[in-house]
């Protein structure tokens, strides 16, 4: 759920920053997507193991054999849904802009990434652990309920409604 909420916040922030008329929004989304896909090659590892709801083939595997298999599936995945991989790579940067606390954590993670490079599997596991740690720390598990177009406690006193178009 945390991923979804960060996306919602990041996406609305992206739109807030750019939004004067609707067309700008579309350009910014495209620009962000292109930048992310170019950046995708170096972050090959991160995209393959990052937080893909229900993507069972990207579950954690350390052995080299699986490593190669995952790279192929990653290429196929990038070919099939470039935006999706971009969506993953794009998120850490935009999350940095909008949320100071998680931003700092992401910044430190980015700094750490550059140091441990030798074993991508081990480093990806480190990231996964950091991300899970964030979810656990955030008390996220206190019964947050996601139901169709609603996230959060149905009895919450405040309703924040976003009227939006996917284009």
């Amino acid at each position, binding site marked *: 759920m945390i991923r979804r*909420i960060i996306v919602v916040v990041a996406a609305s922030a992206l739109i807030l920053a750019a939004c004067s008329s609707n067309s700008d929004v579309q350009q910014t989304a495209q620009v962000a*997507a292109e930048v992310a896909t170019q950046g995708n090659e170096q972050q090959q590892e991160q995209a393959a193991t990052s937080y893909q709801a229900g993507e069972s083939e990207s579950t954690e595997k350390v052995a080299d054999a699986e490593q190669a298999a995952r790279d192929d599936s990653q290429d196929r995945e990038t070919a099939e849904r470039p935006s999706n991989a*971009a969506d993953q790579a794009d998120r850490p940067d935009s999350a940095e802009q909008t949320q100071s606390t998680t931003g700092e954590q992401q910044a430190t993670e980015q700094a750490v990434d550059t140091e441990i490079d030798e074993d991508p599997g081990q480093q990806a596991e480190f990231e996964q652990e950091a991300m899970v740690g964030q979810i656990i720390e955030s008390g996220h598990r206190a019964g947050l309920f996601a139901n169709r177009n609603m996230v959060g406690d149905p009895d919450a006193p*405040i309703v*924040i409604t976003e009227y*939006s178009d996917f284009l």
Partner: protein
Amino acid sequence: MIDELVRTGLARFEYQHILNHGPPSVAAALATECGGDQGRWWDFHDHYMTTNDFSRDGAIALAASLSLDAEEFAQCLDNEVHLDLVEGQHRTAAQAGINRTPTIRINGEGGAVSDALIEQVLEIAAQLESQAGEGES
């Protein structure tokens, strides 16, 4: 900020469809609702927030990657099962004078997106916390 309010249980977040770009808007909204039928509403929402592929094949591919029941999903799309729902949301928003996207409303008030709106959320949140405080002490 919205993230915190939702997680602390002070606010719940809802998404309402606005169909400002004709067929592709409708296609994406329908696909999301059909994904929602199989518990994957937010996965489709996330996907459509950062993609410009609104084709039927794109939706079918996403449904497959989330191991949804392909046949049920395709039928839901082709029979436009949720057309009334998404068009209804668009109409209700238009009647309430909402046409620019995204527009965020807090408990039904507030116009276009602005910092003032975010302030409003914090005020309401503070009021509620103080009321809750009085209730307990």
